[in-house]
Each structure stands twice: as C-alpha cells, then as structure tokens.
C-alpha cells in the first residue's frame, strides 16, 4: 500500500470575513484578492511546507500537492514551485503532483522542463499527475474549455515524447506547435516519472487512464459510486487484455486523528469551515453553475456515477447557484470524513479499504479551518499508530501499491518501469 498525505493549503484568514461557516459566501471567482495579506500568506506557505516535512518523518510514502487558480481554498497556484522546494528539503517520500492542469498550459514544453528538474533535484521521487481542471481554471488562465480534452491528450503525448525521444524533433499538432523540441534537462527516472490521473466526474478521463494503464485516483467521492467507477476501470482493463488491480486505483478522503474523541470532533468540524474546495463534497462555498458547466469542458453525457451524487448534493444543476452544504454529520456517517482517536479511526479506514480496495490512499487533513497544531497532532498519531496499522490491514487485504506491483504489467514493480503503458501513440509528427 502507498499512503500519501494531502492538504489543499487554504488561505486561512479569520479576519477576512470569508472564514468560517458564517462567513461571506464564497462563490467561485467572486472573491477579490484585494484582501490578500502578505504576512499571512507567507506564514501559511511555510506552515504547509513544514507539515510536509513532518509527514515524511512520520512515515508517509507520498506528499501530495494539487493546484487551483484564483481561489482562496488552494494556495498552490504554482504547485511546481512547492514541489521544487520539497524536492530539496525532503529525502525519501515521493512528491505526488495531482496534478498539473496540462490543458491550460499554452507551452507544455516549459512544464516538461520544470518536472524534469523536480525529478532531478529529488533524485527520482516525482510522481507526475495530470488533471483537466475545472471551469475555474480554464477561465483563470483563459484557455479554451471546449478543447480541454483534446489539449489534455495532445499535451500528454508531447510531454511523454519530449521525455523519452532524443531531440531535437519537430511537433506540429492541432493545439501545440514547436519547431525545436530538445529540452536539455531530462527526467531522473527512466524512461520517465510515473504518471497518475486524479478525477471526480469524467468517464472519458477514467477510461483513458485505463487505456494508458495509468493509476486513477478518486478525490473525496462517496464510497459506493467510487467503487462503481473503479469497477469500470477494471472492466475496461480486462477488455483491453490486461489485469488491473489495487495498484491501478487510489482514493483520497478526509482523515483526521486526534488525542481524544472531543478534540477529534472539534478539529473534524473544521473541515467544513473556512475556504475549502466547493467542487468536492462537503465543503463550504458556493459553486457557480455556469463554471461547472463551462461549454465542452466535460462531456454532458459521459460522466461517472460519482458525478450524479455530487450534482444531487448541490441540489441539481439548475438555479442561480448551489451550495454543497452536506452536513458534517452526514459525511461522518458515510465515511467521507473520518475523525477520531487511532482506536476509532483504524476500523473505519479498514471498512473503506475493504469496500474500495485501493492500492494507494491519501489522507486529506489539516484543511478548512484546522490550525497547524491540529495538523501536527494528527500527523504524529498517524505516524505512531495509524500508518503501521493500515499497512498491516493492507497486507492482509492484499492491496499492493503502484510501487509494489506495476500498474502497467501487474508484475512486481522495478525502479525503471514507470506506471504507464509501454508505448504511447503519437498522433502529431509521427
């Protein structure tokens, strides 16, 4: 089992009025940065990096980062900057980027260079994930949402080719054009760093991941539709003639551990306070239905079972705006939030592992309105009690991670065999 740690790095400002359940409504792209406090921003960036160092000390296998734009719920607008720092200040853990929003890069060759440098400086610890981004991201960087999926696939092909094919070569695609592709820096890992794909709703993305034999990570979705979506992955793999398994799927959800049940509840409730991702279940904030349905961004018809649940939680797609507002108690009940002492969380984590059978898991903690102290108490107890217990459970349930069993071959993982399909079809400049 591969166990990662994740925080979305919210901009926590108790004075902003955007903080806490009774704060001003946070509508996507409706919060001006004129409230941004430089001292606070600086302190928070450093806090989140410190927590990542401690997570590595406590035994996590992966330090996960994500990226959003023009929003207070995720400060990682340039996630690769944080990843670059982690490459130097940590020693063992994988740096898991879930992910770079490749369709919004007008120049993905620049991304090729950044990721290769992170892999070099970390001596081969980069796990490079891709996402398609939400409407917010397409708007913030003003990239055609209707070509999001085409650009995603073409950027992926270009990046993999730039990592693996000796340059210089020419690239004349539909969306990207280069007369001289020859990045001097190349990845440390050969042939290139593993590529994973996180997602929530898109059937196209999940099927593509299965076709490419890329691990698919579900983000904070409810258990039963998540199980169904993963079944689709496994069925697709079987149709394509390979055996997928736990090593091909991962699950991220909210897990907090504390010294007493009282402290755990107090901290757990902070998940749904403060600026947090309105796109994912159970967070504060209001989604803008126009952004959710940005034309062509996600197929209106080819969505996963997880999307139907998310849509219902928002009260449907109609109306001027929907707030997620799924109460804390309901999330505790359906295991999308697990908060408690080590003794009470371990059986619940076991239940999730039994239901979904992932080979990778990510504990989402220290988020919403949680303080540095909340995060550090939890990390300590995770390291001391929860992680060893979860590893034993995973062993018993036979849930190998993608660094134990290669997702592409279902054979034992070897350091030089990244988890992607053996060959990538290159459309442009064949």
């Amino acid at each position: 089992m591969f166990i990662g740690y994740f925080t979305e790095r919210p901009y926590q400002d108790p004075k902003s009025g955007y903080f806490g359940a009774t704060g001003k409504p946070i509508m996507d792209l409706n919060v001006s940065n004129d409230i941004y406090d430089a001292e606070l921003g600086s302190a928070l960036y450093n806090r989140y990096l410190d927590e990542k160092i401690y997570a590595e000390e406590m035994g996590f296998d992966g330090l996960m980062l994500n990226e959003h734009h023009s929003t207070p719920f995720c400060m990682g607008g340039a996630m690769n900057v944080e990843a670059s720092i982690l490459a130097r200040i940590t020693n063992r853990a994988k740096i898991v980027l879930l992910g770079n929003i490749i369709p919004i890069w007008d120049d993905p060759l620049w991304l090729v260079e950044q990721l290769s440098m992170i892999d070099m400086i970390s001596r081969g610890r980069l796990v490079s994930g891709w996402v398609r981004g939400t409407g917010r991201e397409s708007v913030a960087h003003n990239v055609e949402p209707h070509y999001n999926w085409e650009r995603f696939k073409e950027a992926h092909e270009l990046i993999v080719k730039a990592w693996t094919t000796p340059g210089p070569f020419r690239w004349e695609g539909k969306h990207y054009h280069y007369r001289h592709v020859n990045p001097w820096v190349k990845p440390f890992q050969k042939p290139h760093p593993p590529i994973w794909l996180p997602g929530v709703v898109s059937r196209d993305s999940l099927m593509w991941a299965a076709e490419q034999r890329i691990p698919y990570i579900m983000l904070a979705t409810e258990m039963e539709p998540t199980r169904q979506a993963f079944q689709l992955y496994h069925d697709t793999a079987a149709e394509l003639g390979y055996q997928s398994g736990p090593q091909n799927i991962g699950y991220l959800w909210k897990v907090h551990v504390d010294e007493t049940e009282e402290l755990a509840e107090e901290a757990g409730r902070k998940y749904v306070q403060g600026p947090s991702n309105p796109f994912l279940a159970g967070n504060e904030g209001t989604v803008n239905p126009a952004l959710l349905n940005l034309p062509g961004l996600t197929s209106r018809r080819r969505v996963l079972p997880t999307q139907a649940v998310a849509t219902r939680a928002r009260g449907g797609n109609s109306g001027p705006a929907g707030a997620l507002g799924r109460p804390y108690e309901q999330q505790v009940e359906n295991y999308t939030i697990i908060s408690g002492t080590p003794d009470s969380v371990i059986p619940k984590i076991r239940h999730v592992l039994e239901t979904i059978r992932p080979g990778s898991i990510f504990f989402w903690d220290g988020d919403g309105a949680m303080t540095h102290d909340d995060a550090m108490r939890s990390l300590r107890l995770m390291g001391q009690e929860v992680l060893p217990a979860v590893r034993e459970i995973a062993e018993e349930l036979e849930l190998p991670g993608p660094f134990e069993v290669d997702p592409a071959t279902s054979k034992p993982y070897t350091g030089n065999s990244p988890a992607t399909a053996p060959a990538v079809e290159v459309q442009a400049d064949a």
Partner: protein
Amino acid sequence: MADGAQVWTEEFVEAAGAQLQIVRAGSGDPLIILHDELGHQTWLQYQDELAKDYSLHIPSHPGFGETERQEWIMNMRDLAGWYLEAIDDLGLNGANLMGFSLGGWLAAEMATMSPDTFRKLVLVGPAGIRPPAGEIYDMFLVVARDFMTAGFHDPDNTPEFKQACPDEPTPELAEAWEVAREEACRLSWRPYMYYPGLPDLLHRVKRLPTLIVWGREDNIVPVSASQVYHESIAGSRLSVLDNCGHHPEIEKSGEFVRLVKDFLA
C-alpha cells in the same frame, strides 16, 4: 407552422458539405437572418412582420440547433468562409443579410470577404469589435437564462421577453441553449467575441449599403462599439435606439421593423 400571421417551415438542406437546418417564411426578395450566440429559438413578431415583405432564410449555424458541427471550423473567419460557400449552394447570392450579436459579427466577416455577394447588410448589436469603452459581457460566467435576461434593458415591459426567455425553460430549450453555448465558445473564447483585425478589414464593406442598429443600453456589446463599426464602414447608417438593450428586435420590435424595412426598400 403558423405561430403568427405568417407560415414558416423548417427543413434540412445540403449546403457546403453539411445538412443545414433552415427555417423559411414569407415571400419577396430574400433576407438571410444570422442568429445570435444562443441560436434561433422562437418565432417572434419582428420575423412575422419582415416575412410580409421578404422571403426569410434563417439557418442554424453549424454546431447550433440541429445543424451538425464542422470540426475544422475553429474561429469566426472559418465559419464566415464556410457560410459563403453555403450561400452559393443555396442560390442566395444577391440576398440581403442581417445578423444579430454573434451572428452580426459573422455577417460582418462575410461582408469583408465578399461584399458583392449581398444586396444590403444589417448589423444588430454585432459583436466582433473590442468596444473602446466597456467590455463585452462574458456569457460563459453565467447560465444561459441569466445571459438572456442581461440582454434586455426593461424585460418586465417587453411583451415578448417571456417567450424568448421563459421563467422555466423547457428541457428542449435548455438543451438548445447548452448546445449553442458550446459552439459559441468554440467560435469566440479568445479573444472573447472579437477579432482584432476586423475594423481594418471592414473598410472593404464601403461597397455594400449597411445599416447598424444598436440599443443605447446594450449590456452585452457596449454601444461604444457602434461608433467603430460606423466609422469603419464608409457610408454606413447608424441607428441607436433609446431605452433599449441588446435585443432591439424584441424590445423595440415596431421601431426596429420600420428601420429595417425603410433601409431594405
């Protein structure tokens, strides 16, 4: 069908390699109407009045309504080029051309490419030019119904507003709006709803009699852009209607019809 006095028909015709959905009505000299960014939605009073004197041809652009998308079309200039062939195929050379909003931009692009194809040109609140004051309303940051509503200065006192923009859109209309938004997005995302070279290209349209109609309170394409159109097309006529938003054809239907009939006569 006959919603008003005039009978209209809808059919699919082969044009420029596509099955083009087209609504036709009336009799007289041909008048091609190019719909806006939400597609041809409903039969309205102004169409009924114009159909008394002209034979109307109202195509759904590729990717709108039920006309299939042409994947190679990536911008408005591509679409304009496609349409000129479609007009050849439909035998409509010499027709009058009228376009609304995104359709006005389309008509303007077609006119720059081939001014002699048309008899007269009417542009109604056309997009296509970056307004010197104000910005073009971003339709993609709101849902379709809110965008429609923003296009009216006084929706409460516009009799046909509810017909164009029902409180509870039918599932068919809601779907048609989403389809239209997607194609509009493909045509207009960046730069949003304009082409930087258009004002200079428009100089060629001086050979084509042109009427520009704008609502003074247009929230969608600010009225400042009307001056650029007017100055770029030598000899053009500009009519700015008071107390009127982005849809003079609906909000000031009577005045609009008189203007257009006078001009086309």
